[in-house]
């Protein structure tokens, strides 16, 4: 029998990266819609780490103009951004 791995869930991957690399006071209560900036999870060097992860681990190329909260500020927006980039 061949085990078929489920397609990796982008949201879970992103959440995992954020919980591993940034301080989240209460991991269970971090919703996919919570602003990472407002909740103090991400700051200017944090964004660089996040972009590093998107580029190196997920193989995306992120343009400067894409470094905006509309793409990066919540787990949902990040997931949608990754999804859009992969379709291009």
């Amino acid at each position: 029998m061949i085990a078929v791995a489920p397609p990796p869930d982008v949201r879970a991957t992103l959440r995992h990266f954020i919980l591993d690399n940034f301080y989240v006071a209460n991991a269970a209560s971090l919703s996919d819609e919570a602003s990472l900036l407002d909740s103090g999870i991400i700051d200017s060097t944090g964004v660089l780490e996040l972009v590093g992860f998107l580029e190196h681990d997920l193989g995306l190329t992120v343009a400067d103009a894409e470094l905006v909260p509309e793409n990066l500020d919540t787990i949902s927006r990040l997931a949608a951004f990754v999804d859009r980039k992969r379709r291009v």
Partner: protein
Amino acid sequence: METLDHAIPQLHDYLTHSARRLPDKVALVCRGRRLTYAALESRANALAHALVRRGVQRGDRVLVFAENGVEAVISFWGVLKANAVVSMIHPQTKVDRLAWLLNDSRAAGLITEAPLAGVAAEAARRSPHLKTLLVSGALDAAPLGGLPAASFEGAMSHESTFHPPPRANLDIDLAAIIYTSGSTGEPKGVMLTHRNMLTAATYITAYLRNVEDDVILGVLPLSFDYGLYQMIMAFRMGARLVLERSFTYPSQILGLIADEGVTGFPGVPTLFAILGGLKSLEAYDLSRIRYVTNTAAALPVKHIRMLQRLFPQARVYSMYGLTECKRCTYLPPEDLDRKPESVGLAIPGTELWLVDEEGNRLGPNQVGQLVIRGATVMAGYWEKPEETARKLRPGPLPGERVLYTGDLCRLDEEGYLYFVSRMDDIIKSRGEKVAPKEVESVLTNVPGVKEAAVIGVPDDVLGQALKAFVVLEQGSTLTEAELVHACQSHLESFKVPKQLVLVPALPKTSTGKIKKTELA
């Protein structure tokens, strides 16, 4: 509006004067909100009355614990107008440290905002001196139970906006306390009088050639004196402050620079390193920028060249200073090509010299401790007489005190200053001071940790990055990630080690002290 018949100026007169002269000019642009001078003046007046009504008296300390924002701006000026002493606190401050600050300053008031209310409330419960806690934004009463809490907006709504409370302070009274990391790990409150701050703002705006038409970018925290002075100087000139929370989304800030016609761009090396790393800078119109300033740590020459390329029309200022006197030196932009490694000359109205360990004045090309004399020198450290006596020592005139900076520098034959190193082991990361001891004590307090040492290592973006070496107790199964997490939960993010390694032992001197020079 207040009539200005006061012979002796105070810091908040900057706002009042500009509001009288330019009531309808937009003074502050912040995350989509635009406030005129008149609006800021009347809100600051109302807040001052609200604070007085809640028991804040002349000379009382009021802490403002908030992100860069409209409410933080109103709070700064409102506290001054209440004849109280303002202290801006970094929004990432955790409960233990905030409680410590409230108690150290015996703050009568704490102003915060809804997203930080949980941290503020927990700290406030440990502070017996607090008379009022004002929270802006949606007020969730649950965590505030039992505290003297009220809504920031609600408290202001019925107060007089036309006049502030009667003026009680002198210009030698304290305007602000700025907390800074000390080498012992315990913060020290730098006491600044109205006179100190008026003087610093006057001299700095003079050499930057600030004008009323300036539009100044504020992306550095107001809790950082360099960030705070952008607002003070903008309001002094009747200029405009474009305030943002951070440089987190650089392209957004670059767009804002273009849209708002920013003319003054103050930054720190980390910010300029991020800027230099962007791929498409030419897409933004940065042509209105008239000057760029750097302080906090020396700017590497390659970044100076990058700024000159990026802003060919701008004057680039390399500056250096410490909170205790605000600013020591600036390099006239005309000298930047000739002396890119120098931090320049004493700012107007101050003088400097170097001394050896016996206090003898040194000549050119000798390394010694920098001493600063002038009206910007602080009044001392809040309730720390020994530390104050170490830094403020007798000067040339009988009874006067000058600032022994604790920084080792050298002067060239033309009198230009070069920073060499600090005399203590404070690390400058992202332009902010970090005491290794504070980080080490967080690490050693984790059950299972035997000892820890923290050093600064060179880092392209951060200037210096924190690197921690940790020795575990026998049998402990702690991981690096768990230790970093422990740091994150107790420290502001700029104090969290970027690298953390577990080691079997730390190098020691014969007396058992950790030999940091052997760590790398």
